[in-house]
């Protein structure tokens, strides 16, 4: 066991640190440091542009998607080097939010299932942020039960014709490409008739409508497909093997969501350190300390859990279902931290006006955004099922639709 750098790792860290010091957009550092979930917003500039510029700069110098092979736009780095990079990138890493799905999920899926020519063509611009990708899985009829999706793909010559609707598609409105899970055979059991593709989001017949979220923001969308054509060369994996392909994507999704999002604890700790309550500094209050300590050990527990997962990866193990715990713990924790910080502020905790500079409204934003963390990328309940079934080995739920042809499954409750 060794949590220190080896000489080689120390050299890598020094190189990364020097490059970041010389190249990062320093003018946004303070704002980025203070922003947390739901609040990564830069005043007076378009954050998407800042993010793309930083990503391109990293890619040009060989610091993008570090663990990807060089020929696909990465650096061929070890998992440990990726951790070192993340530690060094610090608040500038928050600029990577818009590339999360592309780098964390679409990229690995393309790498595992696309042909060589496609990989060479599509992966480098994905790594450099010049092209942004989204993931088109969820549907009105298939959220947690993702295999219940109904978007049809029908073969016509060398092409596939897509008709249907996706929902909760993060970033579809600024994406160039997407990976798309469709139904190709409705006459077999639901998991057995799915096929995965990728497509150009500007294809004729694709219509994107933003969803106004409970938080007031619009990060995700409905996406409609009306006779959209996809060439067979953009199929990922075998026809009707889409379920297996999607498992690769989803496992990477849970891994990356868990690893990449801040816990909210450092923000709460700073906040409590400077807050005065009626009878003295908040940090001297026994109950405040107790709450803080509880969050602190969750935050450190998550940090070291992901480090242990990385050790397992570097010993050649695959990312497993154990990684589901990251997002499960984070979602509830962010929500809890947000309401606790507001509690400490009393009635003023409800205010979100811009002049409430004491916290910049960050906990209020966190409160309003955090419900989505417990739903997106697998609900808390689905994650608990995954841990129970695939880590602890408990029996699967009784699935009444398991061996029923998809087109014979009831579609209405009552």
């Amino acid at each position, binding site marked *: 066991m060794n*949590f220190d750098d080896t000489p080689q790792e120390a050299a890598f860290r020094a190189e990364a640190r020097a490059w970041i010091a010389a190249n990062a957009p320093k003018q946004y550092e303070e704002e980025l440091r203070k922003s947390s979930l739901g609040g990564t917003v830069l005043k007076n500039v378009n954050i998407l542009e800042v993010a793309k510029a930083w990503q391109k700069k990293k890619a040009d110098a060989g610091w993008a998607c570090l663990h990807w092979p060089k020929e696909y736009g990465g650096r061929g780095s070890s998992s440990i080097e990726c951790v070192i990079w993340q530690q060094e990138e610090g608040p500038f890493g928050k600029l990577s939010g818009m590339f999360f799905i592309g780098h964390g999920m679409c990229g690995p899926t393309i790498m595992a299932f696309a042909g060589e020519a496609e990989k060479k063509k599509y992966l480098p611009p994905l790594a450099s942020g010049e092209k942004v990708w989204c993931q088109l899985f969820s549907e009105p009829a298939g959220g947690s039960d993702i295999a219940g999706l109904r978007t049809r793909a029908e073969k016509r010559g060398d092409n596939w014709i897509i008709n249907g609707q996706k929902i909760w598609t993060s970033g579809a409105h600024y994406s160039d490409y997407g990976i798309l899970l469709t139904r190709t055979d409705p006459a077999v059991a639901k998991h057995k008739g799915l096929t995965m593709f990728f497509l150009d989001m500007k294809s004729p017949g694709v219509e994107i409508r933003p969803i106004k979220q409970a938080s007031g923001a619009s990060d995700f969308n409905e996406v409609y497909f009306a006779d959209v054509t996809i060439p067979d060369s953009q199929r990922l994996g075998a026809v009707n093997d889409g379920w297996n392909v999607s498992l690769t994507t989803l496992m990477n999704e849970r891994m990356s969501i868990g690893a990449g999002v801040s816990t909210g604890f450092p923000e709460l700790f700073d906040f409590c350190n400077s807050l005065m309550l009626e009878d003295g500094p908040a940090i001297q209050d026994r109950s405040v300390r*107790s709450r803080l300590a509880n969050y602190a050990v969750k935050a450190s527990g*998550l940090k070291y859990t992901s480090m242990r997962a990385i050790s397992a990866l570097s010993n050649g193990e695959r990312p497993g279902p154990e990684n589901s715990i990251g997002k499960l713990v984070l979602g509830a924790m962010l929500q809890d931290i947000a309401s606790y910080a507001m509690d400490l502020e009393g009635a003023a905790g409800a205010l979100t006006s811009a002049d409430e500079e004491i916290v910049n409204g960050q906990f209020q934003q966190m409160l309003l955004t955090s419900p989505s963390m417990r739903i997106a990328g697998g609900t808390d309940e689905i994650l608990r099922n995954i841990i129970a079934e695939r880590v602890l080995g408990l029996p699967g739920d009784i699935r009444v639709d398991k061996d029923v042809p998809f087109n014979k499954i009831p579609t209405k409750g009552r």
Partner: protein
Amino acid sequence: MNFDFSDEQKQMRDAARQSLAEKCPPKAVREVLDGKATHDKALWAGLAEMGFLGVAIPEEFGGAGAGHLELCVIAEEMGRALAPVRFSSTVYLAAEALLLAGSDAQKQKWLPKIAAGEAIGTLALFEGKGNPAPQGIKLQASGGTLNGVKKPVPDGAIADFAVVAARTGSTRRDADISLSLVDLKAGGVEARALTNIDPTHGQAELTFKNAKAEPLGAAGEGWGILTQVLDRAAVLMAFEQLGGSDRALEMGRDYALDRIAFGRPIGSFQAVKHILADMYVSATLARSNCYYSAWALSTNAADFPEAAAAARISATQAFQHCSKNNIQVHGGMGFTWESDCHIYYRRANATAVALGSLSYWERQLIDRMRKKNAA
């Protein structure tokens, strides 16, 4: 960087698990639980023979000279097996205090005996209700003798010697506390066994009447040493709690797989699955905090005090969470004397308050984080 135990350490864990399964079956734990023995003497001798008691004691003092990472590995297995022996008092508290502050002669006298299983040691710190604090120590040390009362003292009724926290000045300051080393068999100390929620680990009241004592460490430095001893013991105890958490989780999982209700294994119901998934989550967070603290202890890292508090809190929470929900998954069967569920529950809640309860460690953690941030 490498965030896992080495292959050798894992082999050691497997060997410890196997020998504890043979030498410490549930039947042996029950002997002590039911009051038929104060502790498992055969197991104690076996642990000495396998070198587990002196894992972290240097070779020059009769130990194996391996180190604290190895001791953490053994501690986890002791917790998993619910070993009814004086491991934590002797090895985590007494031996660590000697290693930190003992003179060469003191080390030569006691450490080889600990490693050989010939002496049981303990730390006499508490004086009734309350968490560790200098003002809580009233027992007086003067002229080489001690006068006062300590309770609870872990394994106090059967210990051969004790490290005793005593008052050598009259203020609330740290500098008024010093440590003493007392041979409990030399007279002047009366021991009275106390009942407690975990009968597999004894507690006692020790009354010191002009008991002969020699100083351990410099006068006035007792509180500082004590804090370090508690930090080290916190990490080792956290591993013991971790072993208990994992075993409680396994018991719950196994029962959920075997028990049929409504025509199916109860483990196929989401209500039961989710209880078990949450147990896994708390045990995993604790494990990760424990690993970091073990490394920080073994390398004397600058943030060790913070890491120790975090591991202690996390492992305490996990063991309490896993042991109580293990009973819940078992239903009525889990609430019988016959089932082992309650032994884990008892151990979890007894270890939660030993070494200072959660509120002590929460305070330590936040203070230490603030200190680090300020630096």
